[in-house]
């Protein structure tokens, strides 16, 4: 091409010289090596973490553009735990389990501290090597209000909770919580837990993070007959939990002991008879300013509490009634598209979405702003669906979000 350009210049001199000049001007300049991107100063309101079991990281996406912004690695446990974000400290925290020889050898657990602009590791706090590890990764870690303390559920197999002081970057307490599991932040120095005897507890910390006292509620749900899942949602110090049969329990962790209210049903008797049940993994999401509850719903009947749902039922919490039903998008086309080299919005994608059944979703999350997005994933489809959380309109899908996992975390 360069050679033919020269020939052209010789043959048609005037035009040829012009062409060469333009080309020389257009030649791409050498570029710098070593550039590394940074994130904006503050987290976007529509950002989303997508943790992945097989890639062993949590990838960060912009829900508006679908672009991946970066990632933080997780440890070698079964599932990555939820990344925690402190806007006050411009830090991100992740609890990782590692072994001295890859997948074997001595176990070490760490709270890893990242700069939230550079995603570089800026510190770590070693934890007792027994941080709980589950297939879902839900309710295992939490950052308390005020961003000073992080609580980490342990299981060995009895339960306890490690408390880390982010101010001193030290572990300050291990609270014994036998018989209770999952952590539900509910204040600057308080978190709740659910217990195997149908009660809940409040764990109160002293100002330095050490245990002050544990206070237990009366027994308020049926652990065997109709248990509530630990996959709750939060508004301040109030949490909501749903039972397998669709009773919604409101529990305030705001006072000395947890105070549950009488539950109300998410399903009518008819709906229950038709087999409608809660289902999936992270099956609830909550939007505070509109007080809307989103619930993944499947028609699998008893025992389907971990099955994905084809619908997301929307409830007005103060009114205690269902106000809308969203269809889960078909995530097969956006999952296969980029791997198959076709555009999901093109012909092949259209046909796939038309022909193939909708698999439903295991997990949902909603952003907390005034124009909220509702994110959803099926645990084994590497794509995330994005809906307008108010209208239910299906806005877009984000492709290649990973291979396997049930968590969705809005930072």
């Amino acid at each position, binding site marked *: 091409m360069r050679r033919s350009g020269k020939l052209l210049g010789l043959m048609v001199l005037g035009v040829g010289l012009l062409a060469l000049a333009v080309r020389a001007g257009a030649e791409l300049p050498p570029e710098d090596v070593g550039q590394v991107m940074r994130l904006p100063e503050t987290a976007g309101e529509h950002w989303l973490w997508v943790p992945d079991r097989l890639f062993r990281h949590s990838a960060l996406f912009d829900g508006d553009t679908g672009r991946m912004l970066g990632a933080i690695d997780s440890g070698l446990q079964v599932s990555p735990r939820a990344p925690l974000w402190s806007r006050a400290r411009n830090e991100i925290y992740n609890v990782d389990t590692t072994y001295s020889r890859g997948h074997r050898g001595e176990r070490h657990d760490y709270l890893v501290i990242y700069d939230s602009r550079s995603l570089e590791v800026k510190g770590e706090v070693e934890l007792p090597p027994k941080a709980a590890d589950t297939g879902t990764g839900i309710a295992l870690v939490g950052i308390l209000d005020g961003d000073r303390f992080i609580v980490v559920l342990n*299981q060995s197999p009895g339960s306890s909770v490690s408390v880390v002081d982010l101010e001193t970057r030290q572990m300050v307490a291990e609270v014994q919580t036998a018989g209770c599991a999952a952590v539900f932040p509910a204040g600057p120095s308080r978190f709740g837990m659910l217990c195997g005897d149908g009660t809940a507890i409040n764990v109160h910390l002293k100002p330095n993070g050490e245990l002050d006292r544990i206070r237990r509620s009366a027994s308020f749900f049926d652990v065997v007959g109709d248990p509530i899942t630990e996959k709750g949602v939060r508004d301040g110090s109030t949490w909501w939990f749903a039972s397998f049969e669709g009773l919604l329990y409101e529990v305030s962790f705001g006072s000395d002991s947890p105070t549950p209210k009488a539950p109300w049903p998410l399903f009518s008797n008819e709906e229950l008879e038709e087999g409608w049940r809660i289902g999936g993994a992270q099956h609830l999401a909550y939007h505070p300013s509109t007080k809307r509850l989103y619930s993944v719903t499947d028609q699998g009947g008893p025992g389907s509490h*971990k099955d994905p749902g084809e619908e997301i039922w929307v409830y007005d919490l103060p009114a205690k009634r269902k106000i809308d039903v969203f269809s889960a998008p078909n995530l*097969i086309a956006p999952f296969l598209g980029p791997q198959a080299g076709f555009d999901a919005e093109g012909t092949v994608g259209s046909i796939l979405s038309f022909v193939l059944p909708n698999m439903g979703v295991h997990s949902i999350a909603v952003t907390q702003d005034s124009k909220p997005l509702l994110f959803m994933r099926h645990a084994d*489809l590497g794509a995330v669906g994005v809906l307008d959380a108010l209208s239910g309109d299906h806005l877009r899908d984000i492709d290649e979000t990973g291979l396997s996992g049930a968590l969705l975390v809005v930072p």
Partner: protein
Amino acid sequence: MSRIDRWFEGMSRQSARRVSRRSWLSRFGGVLMGGAALPLLPVARAAEKHQVGEDGVKGREGDPRRCEYWRHCAIDGFLCSCCGGSHTACPPGTEMSPVTWIGTCRNPADGIDYIISYNDCCGKTFCGRCMCNRNEGERPLYHWYRNNDINWCGGAKTQTYSCSTAVVVKAAKEAQPEK
């Protein structure tokens, strides 16, 4: 949701429940399914499926390398039978965790409910074969020993999870909670 979607869902709900983590492929395969039956070579694992099953049970419910095996009613993990172990033994080089979750499953051969202990095999990474998730009587995280989400390698020397077994503890005095 289109009608054809619902049709496929009805078709594949059962298998989707049984192999929930990978259910999309089940439905995906269904799209291409017709009435024809062309000859094809045997896949090695499937070749033995017609043998007399374990525990006196015929068919898939008697095959420990199937999710449908009767003991798997509350399992969530890779089946050790497909990983170099068996339904009662870990693959070479792994360690069976002594602590575990349990299920109550009915043996179709004798109609008796048994308590099944799903001991995890630990110390090597994911086996990656015969993923199976069923949740009959499964209970949330705070009800530890009925919960199948937990990595039950907590009692082993190394907590890396490889696969899960299904060991008979004894006949159950009560049926599954949900039954």
